[in-house]
């Protein structure tokens, strides 16, 4: 070992790797690393975020996959969303990311820039993975600069989840094309008549603000930066703060306490903006009836919505690109897998999977209906690209909106702080 000078971390890692390799050779089991064994069986590592329910479903699909492909073994690893990315980042930095993993649009450029993601084009061309049959062109979500960095397993879109009982009692019926004014008037009416705050804090939801900007011909992100200016955000946050003070937005203190439970589910709010496939959580957490409502608009027409997606990506360092591609192909095309997964990761992305799974529970039906209606309304556009660092920007946006709503930062300062931190994050 080097005793002085700057010991490079990678040198140490390499040394450790080399000695491990030597040991492996000495053992003469022919077991190079963790992936090959004598009979040609390979093992791939599959990491994803989620909770118990998803774990159960994924394990079932893997059992099915291993039956169909007896030469491929799949080892899984899962965490919740935040912990997943922390672990992934560390693994990727150490040169040991999982062979295949769940991914989202905010991370595509970030990890592409760092050379972590495999361009699946080669595997598509080799016929190990098919890009046919994706609904509504959702496969484009995984494309960056002409590369196919992720394959969508499900699609989702932003939505407004409402407490149906409260909205009914207040006599409000959300309709496609309603405006922000109408939405906030509805919240005020709910506040005045039903004594419930309206919304859980819309102004901190980055993806919603993106829709609002898109309604006005802008977007949250451009390919390498932010697509709006300080004046835009000042208006958005100042309005939000005033509505909070007027009582039509739920007290942020309350929201904080309830985390990770939603204030909508606890009866402390009448509506919340979120991804439509998350609607499942509200009916398990709360005891009212929850429904999906259209996104309010500026001009009575455009909602700014698009189909986003949860994807599967592969590591550029994988020793088994072919097997990984076969695995992804199975996950996005196999009808049996679709029946097991349901809408857990969004509405199934390919037509063969979409047709194979017919939802029977009311929530899944509602989600399917919602995407059908949204698509039929002709409001769906193309997703705006997310630059590298978008994930940090989202966390920053949420955090500073929180500071501001708690009255800890003045709106003007909050806006300045956001722009300075976002700039740093996008430059990193």
């Amino acid at each position, binding site marked *: *070992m080097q005793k002085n000078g*700057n*010991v*490079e*971390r*990678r040198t*140490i890692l390499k040394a450790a790797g080399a000695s491990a390799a030597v040991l492996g050779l000495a053992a003469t089991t022919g077991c190079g690393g963790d992936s090959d064994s004598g009979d040609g069986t390979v093992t791939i590592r599959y990491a994803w975020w989620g909770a118990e329910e998803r774990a159960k479903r994924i394990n079932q699909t893997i059992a099915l996959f291993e039956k169909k492909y007896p030469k491929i073994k799949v080892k899984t690893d899962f965490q919740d969303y*935040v912990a997943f*990315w*922390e672990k992934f*980042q*560390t693994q*990727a*930095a150490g040169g040991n990311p999982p062979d295949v993993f769940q991914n989202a649009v905010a991370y595509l450029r970030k990890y592409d820039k*760092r*050379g*972590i993601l495999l361009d699946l084009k080669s595997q598509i061309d080799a016929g190990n993975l098919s890009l046919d049959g994706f609904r509504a062109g959702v496969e484009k979500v995984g494309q960056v600069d002409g590369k196919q960095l992720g394959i969508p397993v499900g699609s989702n879109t932003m939505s407004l989840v409402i407490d149906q009982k409260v909205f009914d009692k207040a006599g409000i019926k959300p309709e496609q094309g309603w405006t922000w004014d109408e939405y906030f008037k509805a919240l005020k009416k709910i506040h005045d008549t039903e004594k419930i705050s309206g919304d859980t804090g819309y102004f901190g939801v980055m993806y919603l603000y993106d829709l609002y900007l898109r309604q006005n011909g802008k977007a949250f992100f451009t390919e390498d930066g932010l697509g709006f200016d300080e004046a835009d955000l000042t208006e958005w946050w100042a309005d939000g703060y005033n509505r909070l003070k007027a009582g039509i937005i739920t*007290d*942020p*203190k*309350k*929201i*904080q*306490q*309830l*985390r*990770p439970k939603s204030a909508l589910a606890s009866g402390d709010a009448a509506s919340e903006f979120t991804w439509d496939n998350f609607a499942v959580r509200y009916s398990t957490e709360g005891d009212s009836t929850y429904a999906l409502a259209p996104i309010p608009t500026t001009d009575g027409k455009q909602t700014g919505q698009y189909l986003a997606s949860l994807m599967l990506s592969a590591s550029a360092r994988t020793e088994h690109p072919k097997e990984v591609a076969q695995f992804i192909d199975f996950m996005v095309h196999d009808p049996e897998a679709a029946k097991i997964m349901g809408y857990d990761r969004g509405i199934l992305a390919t037509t063969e999977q979409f047709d194979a799974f017919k939802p029977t529970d009311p929530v899944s039906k509602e989600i399917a209906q919602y995407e059908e209606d949204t698509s039929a309304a002709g409001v769906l556009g193309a997703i705006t690209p997310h630059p590298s660092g978008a994930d*940090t920007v989202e*966390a920053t946006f949420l*955090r500073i909106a*929180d*500071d501001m709503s*708690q009255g*800890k*930062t003045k709106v003007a300062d909050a806006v300045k*702080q956001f722009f300075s*931190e976002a700039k740093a*994050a996008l430059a*990193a």
Partner: protein
Amino acid sequence: MGTAVTLVKDSPPQVPAERPARPAVVKRRGRRENLAGYLFMSPWIAGFLLLTAGPMVASLYFAFTDYNLFNSPKWIGLDNFTKMFDDPRWQKSVEVTAKYVIIGTPLKLLLALGVALLLAQSRRGQAFYRAAFYAPSLIGASVSVGFVWRALFSDDAVVDKAQTFLGFHTGGWVGDADWVLYSLVALTVWQFGAPMVIFLAGLKQVPRELYEAAEVDGAGPFRRFWNITLPVISPVLFFNVLLETIHSFQIFGSAYVVSNGYCGPADATLVYTCYLYQKGFKEAQMGFASAMAWMLLLAVALVTAVLFWSQKRWVHYEEDAR
């Protein structure tokens, strides 16, 4: 007092001052013993070099670089340090940590000393009370206690209900930027058992005769405490102050768990290490995080130095023990 110290001091030195030439056999045995010693120590030495010294050297290097974990580090000199002072969140983390240390540490030590004074007297069930007060120190650092704390101080939970009963409703401490830090202070104060045990040991060392003499001279309990107990246990007090202050600076687990990993709301529990963690592992700014770590080390060293300097004024060692 001081018997142990004197013993050590007076015990004959292992190596005689004037070394007679040793026979070869003895020398060889000595070398073999040394070798055995090093052999037994080797796991620790290897662990120290690999897990402590190595990473420290690496982090000192990273502190002067721009390093995002993926690209190789780029030397930027003192930029990380200057950037730090301009960063409002860094300032906030310093403020939060300082508040936590300044409020939490004295409260914890006061409680530890108070309870130690009560428990120093012999009475029935003493062993039970000592164990009961010490227990939180054993489990207090665990993540599960963090979760329990979060549950206790949430809206409509035990603490909030008790408060409402007493007539001041705050709606739970966990979600309130003005209150949440005090729930962390409460958590550390609750773990007063460890310094308490040390105080107890110190109190046992106070010579009975001094109290008896003082009583004869008509000194009341407060005077006896102020003029006898406190000076005699001042070395122990110094030790506790030092240890607990350093310990407080390093708060991480409880802030992370109670705030659900956000160190919020509104950065109200953004303690120094929590910000360091966010910078390093969430935002992948390892260079900046390393610089922060070394800054913390400097700050703790400075505080320790100040404490050592101040001890001349208030810590009394017996003449012979010095």
